[in-house]
């Protein structure tokens, strides 16, 4: 039976000799491989994509290493819109004002300021300097804002400058740049005429779109401003000394920064860029990085490692957005009401997302937003939803009646391509199927295709998220105004528009907050959207690293005031 292949069995010496040869070949190959690796390393260093390996916290050099999930596309503050640009810019730039460690407005490059209904005035300090030693002047701000508003710049965040007089018209190209309502009577005084009263204008100038740019340097970069470390100037506590694309950024202390006393770290090494949270957790475990975010699946490992786990709200609201276009069955109030009455967001947060930072959504306005004096949601509590299966079924029957349908046609649920979106849409599908018998078709799309479908209205419901642009309820409040392009479901209600106008045009805090409260109620009553949860972050920080700040707006994570405590455990 086994003598089908006799040639080897009866030639043991041949096999042995051949095996010996193979072994020698293998040894040769290993030597060659090692030599080749040295060669490749030498070649690779010529091109320069490499990580500067360091420890998570280096007490001697007063430096830390961190990881970010995505690389900033570029660091021109007039164009930046994403979180990682915001994070880096928050470390290397400073605007007129800044947010303190306890989230209060404090002087930045401007040492004092004054905002009235028609005008804002900033007095710049004389010791604020660019990273090349040249003084920061009011003209640098004016130049930056004009650059952002110039139609050719096509800045997506230019709308944040619209409180400035004529800014919108300038941005739309109907009038010239010189008509913009900003003046510098001298190098250290900046006067801004306001288009309309904006109660929170002083908070808005902390945002990156309001950061300065220096004209001579900007022009010299010939459109490449912010593309590389040497193509930028800095006003903040750190400067970027090296930026290896896709691999690392090295932030070092800015010797020309005016407020040296506040800064402790000498180096922040952004040593790793990867979107994989588990990989970042491994880097943390291996003492390579000083901070990382935990996902639900990593919590048990973090507990086992006895790490000090922290949590914080990140300010983003996730919600189920309905399509209110006339052709869609989700335009029917009763259908939306039926859905609202059965979807238990507590189950979603406690059983499905399973992260301690998450809070079940109750309102269009997340809990962190400021109100008249304290928090908006404490002053104006969100309407309480009482889930009711029986009522939901009644509303569903009404919906079928009004729509003249025997059955509600399958609803398309548009969802993103992340694992989180998968889980949530699967959960929602099952809930609506079991409780209401609704057929939900999950339409999983990658980013750009999802956006295309959202814009064209090719969905019934969509899992959406909204992060704040500035520290005022209006950043959420105007979302469902009929003119807002981010109102993807085309919700169109004169009452809503009326309330948004009131909130936009008043400076009286009480009036505005009342308007937001009415918007909150209207969004609930008319089921404009279904708030799902307020996202949180659960994270761990190296025990020797102290005073790290998480922010809802601006740089998150903020290491500007962090320090190393050699005794920390």
């Amino acid at each position, binding site marked *: 039976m086994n003598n089908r292949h006799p040639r080897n069995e009866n030639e043991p010496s041949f096999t042995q000799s051949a095996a010996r040869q193979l072994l020698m070949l293998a040894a040769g190959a290993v030597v060659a491989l090692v030599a080749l690796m040295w060669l490749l390393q030498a070649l690779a*260093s010529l091109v320069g994509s490499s990580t500067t390996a360091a420890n998570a916290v280096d007490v001697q050099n007063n430096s830390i290493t961190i*990881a970010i999930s995505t690389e900033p596309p570029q660091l021109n503050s007039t164009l930046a819109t994403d979180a990682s640009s915001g994070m880096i810019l928050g470390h290397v730039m400073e605007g007129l004002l800044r947010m303190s460690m306890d989230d209060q407005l404090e002087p930045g490059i401007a040492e004092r300021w004054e905002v009235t209904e028609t005008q804002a005035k900033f007095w710049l300090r004389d010791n604020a300097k660019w990273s090349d030693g040249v003084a920061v002047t009011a003209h640098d701000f004016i130049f930056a804002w004009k650059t952002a508003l110039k139609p050719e710049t096509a800045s997506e965040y230019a709308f944040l400058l619209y409180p400035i007089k004529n800014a919108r018209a300038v941005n739309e190209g109907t009038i010239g740049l010189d008509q913009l309502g900003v003046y510098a009577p001298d190098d250290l005084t900046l006067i801004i005429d306001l288009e309309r009263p904006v109660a929170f204008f002083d908070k808005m100038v902390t945002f990156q779109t309001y950061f300065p740019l220096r004209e001579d340097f900007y022009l010299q970069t010939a459109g490449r401003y912010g593309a590389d470390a040497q193509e930028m100037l800095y006003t903040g506590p750190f400067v970027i000394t090296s930026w290896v694309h896709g691999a690392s950024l090295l932030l070092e202390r800015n010797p020309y920064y005016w407020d040296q006393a506040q800064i402790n770290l000498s180096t922040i090494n952004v040593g790793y860029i990867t979107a994989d949270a588990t990989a970042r957790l491994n880097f943390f475990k291996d003492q390579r990085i000083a901070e990382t975010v935990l996902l639900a699946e990593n919590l048990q490992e973090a507990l086992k490692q006895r790490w000090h786990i922290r949590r914080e709200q990140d300010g983003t609201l996730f919600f189920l957005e309905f399509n209110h276009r006339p052709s869609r069955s989700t335009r029917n109030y009763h259908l939306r009401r039926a859905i609202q009455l059965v979807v238990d967001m507590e189950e979603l947060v406690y059983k499905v997302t399973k992260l301690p930072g998450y809070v079940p959504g109750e309102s269009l306005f997340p809990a962190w937003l400021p109100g008249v004096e304290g928090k908006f949601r404490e002053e104006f509590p969100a309407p309480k939803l009482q889930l009711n299966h029986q009522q939901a079924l009644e509303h569903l029957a009404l919906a079928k009646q009004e729509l003249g349908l025997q059955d509600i046609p399958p609803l398309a649920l548009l969802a993103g391509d992340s694992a989180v979106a998968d889980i949530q849409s699967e959960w929602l599908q099952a809930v609506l199927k079991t409780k209401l018998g609704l057929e939900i078709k999950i339409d999983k799309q990658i980013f750009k295709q999802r956006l295309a479908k959202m814009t064209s209205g090719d969905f019934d419901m969509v899992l959406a998220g909204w992060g704040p642009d500035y520290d005022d309820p209006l950043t959420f409040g105007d979302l469902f105004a009929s003119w807002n392009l981010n109102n993807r479901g085309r919700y169109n209600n004169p009452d809503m528009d009326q309330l948004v106008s009131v909130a936009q045009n008043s400076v009286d805090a009480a009036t505005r907050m009342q308007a937001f409260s009415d918007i909150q109620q209207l969004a609930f009553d008319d089921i404009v959207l279904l708030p799902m949860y307020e996202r949180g972050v659960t994270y761990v920080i190296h025990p020797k690293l102290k005073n790290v700040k998480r922010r809802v707006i601006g740089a998150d994570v903020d290491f500007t005031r962090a320090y190393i405590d050699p005794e920390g455990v």
Partner: protein
Amino acid sequence: MTRYILKRLLQGILTVWFIATATFFAMHAVPGDPLSGDKAMTERIRANLEAKYGLDKPLMTQYGIYLKNIAQGDFGISFTQENRKVNDIIREHFPVSATLGILAILFAGVGGILWGALTALYRNRLPDTIIMFLVILGISVPSFVVAALGQLSMVNLNTFAGFSILPIGGWGTIWHMIVPSMVLGLSTMAYLTRLMRSSMLEIINSDFVRTAKAKGLPATRIFSQHQLRNAILPVITVLGPSIAAITTGGFVVEIIFAIPGLGRYFVEAVQQLDYTVIMGTTVFYGAFLVFMVILVDILYGYVDPRVRVS
């Protein structure tokens, strides 16, 4: 020979042109818009952006401009990395992917040939069984599982040792290259082992080996000159396409090991519909691949006189 190579190169250029054309139109046929973002933009801004990237022109004009630009070696400016030239992206990140890929291929090639030859020699005996079991294990686990497990075991090893034996991510020194390139090369190594084994078995039975033995050639010469050399042929044939697969397929490893390779940029570009980066990387890889195929064909002719080009 020179004429042959010249002819192949000319054909290669034609192939690359076809690749560029097909990708260009496929890309524009995909719905979605490279300019859109999480937050909606006004018509005015959108028009400005379209003008900036030349998307306001008719498609055929864009195609013409694009061809003219790539003929001059200019791939344009990325849509997502707003101020970076695609040429720079390729120049900075391709060497990383290539290094990783070459190492992985070498690990795979050397390993595959050695293991394959060994299993053939010890056919149906213990070494064969053990290696083939490992091979099957190696190919039956998806790359992201292998990468994650590889990284995790390295972390645990480092923790256990109390110092960092090998880095678990990042890029720069040869120490950074070892784990990721082994992870990347694993499935190819398994594949080549199988291929080598089967090809080796065929050679062992062939007439010319029998003749060589009959005429009393020493075993060492039979093995290295006749068996090994001939058995490597099919392995070399698949190496060409594997190089392309590995250098483009490094995405998972690049993400998990935080390596600044081009694979990451390419996958992200497709998801973000970054027209210029998709085109740039596809054309570049296409050219690279065509060149590799030509190289392999020449190499093949060298190793195997029977198919030597006339």
